[in-house]
């Protein structure tokens, strides 16, 4: 009888101790979270703002880009089942450009997330790859950190070149592929072309819809 009392006592003390450590550990994490939360959010906003500014120069708009957003869905043209964010740049209330965030679903490995900035008149201001898993040294040339290839879209639009031109050179188009990698550039070219199509079909809607601010920046580390 006595041994079981001792045993139960021991079990209770041990369980309590484990509980205390759990509370202490969680408390420490909670405290750190509380102290860094604001800074982390600020970092993510700054990072997003910097990325968006490489596409649309800050002098060309005067609204807050990461607040003036809408979400749209088009699996066919924007490559994702999930809603996709569009950032809208305006100056003095007039639309300047839109940044679409399509996904190229047919990369060599996994989704390629893109930012496509389109001027109000339908001309491309810039394209950037936000995240990808393409082969290092081959397909990753789509990344601005590795090569300037992605800049070759600048200035083009839906009818410049024509539909046949919106392909990689190997398929008869005007856009380079890289040595040893056709799949990644092909996927990006297609996604950019589809974004332009989407933009043409929905331009007034894109700039007309009321603001739907994002809770979370959609382009974090992914």
């Amino acid at each position: 009888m006595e041994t079981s009392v001792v045993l139960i006592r021991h079990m209770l003390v041990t369980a309590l101790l484990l509980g205390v450590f759990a509370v202490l550990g969680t408390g420490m994490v909670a405290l750190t979270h509380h102290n860094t939360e604001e800074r982390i959010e600020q970092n993510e906003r700054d990072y997003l703002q910097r990325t968006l500014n490489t596409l649309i120069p800050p002098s060309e708009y005067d609204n807050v880009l990461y607040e003036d957003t809408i979400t749209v869905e088009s699996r066919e043209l924007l490559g994702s089942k999930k809603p996709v964010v569009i950032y809208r740049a305006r100056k003095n209330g007039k639309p300047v450009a839109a940044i679409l965030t399509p996904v190229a679903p047919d990369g060599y490995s996994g989704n390629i997330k893109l930012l496509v900035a389109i001027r109000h008149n339908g001309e491309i201001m810039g394209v950037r790859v936000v995240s990808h898993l393409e082969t290092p040294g081959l397909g990753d040339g789509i990344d601005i950190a590795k090569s300037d290839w992605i800049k070759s879209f600048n200035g083009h639009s839906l009818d410049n070149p024509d539909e046949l031109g919106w392909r990689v050179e190997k398929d008869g188009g005007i856009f380079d592929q890289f040595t040893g990698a056709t799949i990644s550039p092909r996927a990006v070219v297609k996604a950019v072309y589809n974004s332009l199509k989407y933009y043409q079909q929905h331009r007034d809607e894109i700039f007309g819809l009321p603001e739907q601010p994002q809770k979370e920046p959609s382009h974090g580390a992914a």
Partner: protein
Amino acid sequence: MAQHDYSEITRQGLWKNNPALVQILGLCPLLAVTSTVVNGLALGLATLLTLILSNVTVSLIRHYVSPEIRIPVFVLVIASIVTVIELAMHAYFHELYLILGIFIPLIVTNCSIIARAEAYASKNPVGPAFVDGLMMGIGFAAVLIVLGGMREVLGQGTLFANAHLLLGEMARGFEVIVIEDYRGFLLAILPPGAFIGLGLLIALKNVIDSRQEKRLQTAPAVSTEATAGTA
């Protein structure tokens, strides 16, 4: 164990019992991250910090934790520390976090940390536990850096690329282009390159060790005894 031989702890951590080369622990982050020196250094520092903090904490609480709940408490301690480091890194080294982010939580699964907690820190006072964490951490980080350097030179022909992400703007000029107009060597950047590189490092260590041993054997008997006595 009244006397703790700090130089022996140091030798264990850096060489004789190196977490990466001898214990072969923590391979997941080791192989995944070491594509450049800077990535290796950053993960090495994060792991070093975790090892020191967890060793010290575990040593401090070693008298209060009963054996039954030892392991869950150690895991809890390590997980909390790593989460705090991750949050701090996200807040203060955001760009680097974007590169290493997904590997930081993986430090929790680096077995060398719980191995040190269980095998050393839970049985020794704070001082030696701290030195053990420091030396094991440096030993691990050194392998990350060397492997990162090997893969970076072979894979993309540079050294210290992106140093500014870790060390601030002044480090932007640190990048050394070792091989001009290098087309890159894909294998070195991909995971197989990491395995082969680590294998070569382990082999190199074994060669050095066996040379050392031979030298001791051929030396006069008296000095062998003397060396064995101090080792």
